[in-house]
């Protein structure tokens, strides 16, 4: 009987199975940021166990509130910074080099097919785009990961999503994942892995695959995952060319960990996306999803483009194509936060930043900031934000505020119109 990619990763990383239904895995990487890691660090220090299992496998970034906005966030950054220096963690990204964790770590080549990764952040599921098993965990799991390099999971059950057809114009990865969450609900994949396959995924670049996997947690999934292919190899090639004689060799090695054609799934769902429309959320649940058409005309106060979901170069190109030569609505505040310095630099070089600025956007440094109502674009009570982020919970971007989740294209068109709008109306700019 064949195996899924997740089962193969579990098989090759299992160090213990202490009880039925519990598998302890060896970790290839532990990612850390300044919100959930400092409490782990101070607890380890208090226990006299201020150690790191392998400094080369621990990566850290200050991203959630950067630059620090007050004494408390400055202290969180300091605890992480001092710890990284104390333990000689070479891959530590401080201000000037820092970006949103789920954008900068893949960009640095830290995520590889077949890896096991944890982080104290629920959107760690993003990294499954590379064929890794990557899961968000709490601070205690993170603490044990830092100390011992292991983490416990239930054996992997996988839901397969076979996505076929050709996406219509103006429809992107974000629309797909919103559509799927709307179909299965916020509890639809709890304790399961969402494996995304089919021609639609095959045709996607890594940025789009990350967008899809990023929101698997919004359906309750442990991880989103895509099987590694030539696109994965191309993206990773600068980092893996010392390990393989050729891209063909790399592809063959990664093919061995991909799901077998006769693998067993908990459930298989097939969707033809040829007539999918741009989607957006309403109200306060990520599974409250409607076609943009049905929400069209709803006014917004702020448009936010950025985050671990949609702050990558592909997203900026798509939004800039809509904005080019136009001005955002006078009533709307536009905020762009490129997810990493490299993306920011590339956007500058490609002239994208100029397009955003000419349109009237404020361009911030890379940070998670506004997405979780921390900084750089917090909403006032009763304000509405059209956002390319991942969560629309009540109060998420600021107490009493409301968030409509959507694609960068829809967000850009919404910024121009001042109300929720299909980007196809702005094809080629105005």
């Amino acid at each position, binding site marked *: 009987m064949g195996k899924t990619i997740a089962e193969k990763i579990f098989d090759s990383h299992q160090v213990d199975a202490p009880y*039925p239904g519990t598998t*302890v895995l060896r970790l290839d990487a532990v990612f850390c940021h300044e*919100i959930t890691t400092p409490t782990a660090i101070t607890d380890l220090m208090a226990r006299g166990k201020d150690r790191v299992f392998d400094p080369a496998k621990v990566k850290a970034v200050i991203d959630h509130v950067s630059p620090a906005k007050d004494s408390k966030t400055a202290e969180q950054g300091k605890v992480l910074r001092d710890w990284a220096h104390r333990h000689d963690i070479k891959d530590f990204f401080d201000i000037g080099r820092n970006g949103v964790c789920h954008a900068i770590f893949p960009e640095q080549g830290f995520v590889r097919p077949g890896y096991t990764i944890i982080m104290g952040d629920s959107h760690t599921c993003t990294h499954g785009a590379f064929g890794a098993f990557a899961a968000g965990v709490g601070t205690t*799991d993170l603490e044990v990961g830092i100390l011992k390099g*292991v983490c416990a999971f239930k054996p992997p059950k996988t839901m397969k999503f076979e996505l076929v057809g050709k996406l219509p114009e103006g429809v992107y990865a974000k629309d797909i994942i919103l559509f799927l969450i709307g179909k299965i609900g916020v*509890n639809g994949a709890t304790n399961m892995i969402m494996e995304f396959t089919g021609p639609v995924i095959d045709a996607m670049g890594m940025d789009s695959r990350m967008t899809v996997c990023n929101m698997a947690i919004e359906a*309750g999934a442990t991880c989103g995952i895509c099987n590694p292919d030539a696109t994965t190899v191309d993206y990773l090639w600068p980092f893996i060319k010392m390990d393989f004689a050729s891209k063909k060799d790399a592809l063959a090695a990664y093919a061995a960990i991909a799901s077998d054609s006769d693998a067993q799934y908990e459930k298989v769902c097939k969707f033809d996306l040829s007539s999918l429309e741009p989607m957006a959320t309403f109200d306060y649940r990520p599974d409250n999803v409607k076609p943009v058409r049905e929400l069209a005309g709803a006014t917004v106060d702020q448009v936010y483009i950025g985050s671990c979901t949609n702050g990558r170069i592909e997203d900026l190109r798509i939004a800039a194509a809509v904005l080019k030569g136009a001005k955002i609505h006078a009533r709307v505040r536009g905020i762009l936060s490129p997810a990493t310095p490299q993306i920011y630099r590339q956007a500058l070089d490609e002239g994208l930043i100029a397009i955003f600025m000419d349109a009237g956007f404020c361009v911030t440094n890379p940070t998670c900031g506004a997405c979780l*109502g921390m900084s750089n674009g917090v909403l006032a009570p009763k304000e509405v934000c059209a956002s390319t982020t991942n969560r629309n919970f009540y*109060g998420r971007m600021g107490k009493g505020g409301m968030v409509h989740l959507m694609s960068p294209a829809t967000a850009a068109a919404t910024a121009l119109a001042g109300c929720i709008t299909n980007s196809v109306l702005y094809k080629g700019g105005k």
Partner: protein
Amino acid sequence: MKTFGGKVLFLDRADINTDEIIPAKYLTEITKEAMKPHLLEDLKLEGFDRRRDIAGKRVVVTRENFGCGSSREHAPWAFEVNDITAVIAPSFARIFRQNMYNCGMLALELPAATIEHLFKAYAGKETTMSIDVTGGAIRVETAGVSETIQFSLQGFDAALVQAGGWLEYADSNY
């Protein structure tokens, strides 16, 4: 091992998320104690007033998929510093559930029908639960009425509760 049981807080809604349990803006706090006044601050639920309803409670009974959303362990901590060490529901979000057991606390799953019965029979009344973890029994009581509900805490979950949490368990095993 922590102690479990006492007065019950009923939260009658599915999919209560971590941002409702403890808003992100409090994640900049370094101590668990700082979470105490903010538990369930953004929960909009008819009939629920956190200023009135949280004090003195030790157990939460709620609906499906409790704790969905963020990975923040601040959610279990916010309960812990309010002396609530057990949450009972038909199902939990994975990370929240694991965080509870990792802290040596209880996230107990009971059949949806049992939870429905608890809401019908006890919600809105002053109710207490005595929880016997090793015996797998919950004694539920309100004025003049009482009953015992069985549950089973096994394997890894039981080991974590016995050890006092995952760090304690992992440190002695790996």
